[in-house]
């Protein structure tokens, strides 16, 4: 039986995350050649969101897409998300200008659970490719709570390193890896994580986001150390609130949009993690595990 998940405010009700709050884009920033950050003021979301949660972003007349929250600020009710230009909807998003209107619903899903105590050791964040946004947000919160944060950041090449400066400003250590060796060590974010794990194995916990192949390899690696690992998964989502079942990953009916997108690695046993995903029709397809590890 599925365990009932509750938010801090009680059971998830229909009112939660099902109505769009429409407002103008206050600012658009280019982060890398492929990614832009969009800033809106939505105090209700800014006040309740936590790192790892996501938004359904409505581009009126085009589509609605899930986007990880990359930052919030209580003053001004600021909410930010960061989108790579990868398809029709994100291309329309990238073409938008400051002042154009977007609809946001959320915060949705369950994010990272940071350790209560700051004395159990530093936290290891592993960000591959476009996996930086929730971890940059998590870094802000963790550092504010007094955690020491170490980051393993990987990308295909130096210009693609997303939120490098944000990580370097807040985290105590940042190890860079690029596929082409244009910055840091030549390799993936998992190689950068290995480097950190081998010099300091007393991490309290590890948090990761990136291509699933990369997450899968990290999960295999982390067994050696062993450190609790939480990963943020990406799946095709149609409703974002656990109704349609498009993002279910196991026989217990765990939904990436509701029970996830962040999962403890143990809860992913006997799931699709690292093996299968669904396309827009719901077709179950093998996940190419070589994809993530070779590029990030």
């Amino acid at each position, binding site marked *: *039986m599925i365990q009932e998940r509750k938010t801090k405010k009680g059971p998830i*009700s229909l009112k939660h995350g*099902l109505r*769009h709050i429409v407002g103008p884009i206050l600012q658009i920033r280019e982060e890398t050649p492929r990614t832009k950050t969009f800033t809106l003021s939505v105090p209700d979301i800014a006040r309740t969101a936590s790192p790892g949660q996501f938004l359904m972003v409505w581009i009126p007349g085009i589509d609605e*897409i899930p986007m990880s929250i990359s930052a919030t600020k209580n003053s001004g009710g600021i909410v930010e998300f960061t989108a790579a230009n990868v398809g029709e909807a994100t291309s329309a998003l990238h073409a938008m200008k400051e002042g154009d209107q977007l609809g946001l619903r959320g915060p949705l899903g369950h994010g990272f659970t940071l350790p209560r105590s700051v004395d159990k050791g530093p936290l290891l964040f592993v960000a591959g490719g476009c996996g930086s946004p929730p971890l940059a947000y998590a870094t802000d919160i963790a550092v504010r709570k007094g955690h020491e944060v170490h980051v393993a950041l990987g990308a295909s090449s130096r210009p693609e390193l997303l939120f490098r400066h944000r990580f370097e400003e807040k985290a105590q250590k940042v190890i860079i890896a690029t596929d082409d060796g244009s910055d840091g060590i030549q390799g993936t974010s998992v190689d950068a994580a290995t480097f950190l794990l081998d010099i300091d194995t007393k991490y309290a916990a590890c948090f990761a986001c990136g291509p699933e192949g990369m997450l899968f390899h990290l999960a295999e690696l982390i067994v050696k150390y062993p450190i609790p690992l939480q990963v943020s998964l990406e799946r095709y989502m149609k409703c974002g609130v656990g109704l349609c*079942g498009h993002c279910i990953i196991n026989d217990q*009916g765990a939904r990436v949009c509701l029970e996830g997108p962040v999962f403890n690695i143990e809860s992913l046993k006997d799931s699709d993690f690292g093996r299968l995903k*669904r396309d827009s029709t719901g077709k179950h397809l093998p996940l190419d595990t070589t994809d993530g590890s070779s590029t990030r």
Partner: protein
Amino acid sequence: MTSNSEVETDPRLQVKIGSVELENPTILASGVLGVASGGLISAWKDGAGAVVTKTVGLKPRVGHPGPRIVGLHGDSLMNAMGIPNPGIGEYLPEIKAAVKQGVPVIGSALGSTPKEFATVASKLVRSGVLAVELNVSCPHVDSLYLLGMDPDSVADVVTQVVGKTKGVPIWIKLPGSTDYPRLVQVAQAAESAGVAAIVALNTLPALAIDTETQTPLLGAGIGGLSGPAIKPIAVRAVSELYKAGLKIPIIGVGGILTGDDVIEYLLAGATAVEIGTGVLIRESTIFSKTRKEMADYLTRHEIQHISELTGCMKDVGVNP
């Protein structure tokens, strides 16, 4: 009837929909959780008497662009998924995985022609489903909605399907509508053509507009209304169908959140019910919750068996 190790059987709750025996009268409605076998399995483990698959057609469908779901005031919901499905060939493994675990699965079929309905239904039957529910009523796929409101077209589809499904019960899901006389005509035509049960109703055709952007809230432009707002409409439909003297069972659907809601549908004339939007409002443990509430009702009213309630609404007449 398959036993579910996670649920203690309560004989008072068992119902029969024609030849289909269910452990209790609640069924997971089509389009909810059913894309993946895991969704079907988990709903059954929570205590659903049966589960209906995602509606599946012959060819893959991507469905409508987003937003595909939007919440309204008063816990009601609109959706326009657009029946995304990978096509029957790719979907069969999901059904088989659930059937293998003993889940009582009802297949939901879609077709662009009567022949296509029959082809999909026959493939569903071969995958081990207990019954096939024909979706002739999606309110945001125009051709289907129009089909479901036309008695002759429905009879045509049913005749072709019944000829290809080897005696496996065929159910038909009626369109969401307040045109009760028409719904009765469609149900009667379907009954004559050989369906084993009537499912009433699908979501109601509806529209919601965002006033800030002056744009329809759903990507499809229109959608289907579900949840508590439509319950009185669907209960009325069930009652009208029951009073029309159908000889086949009626399965009520629309806005069921509690065991008491199930009882209400039964009193109106239903034999069983389907639950969809309730999965969102009361979470996916809604089946175990309604199950307990139904059992409590039977105890409180000293009723031996839940099927005794079907059609037992006290007739107070209708004032002109």
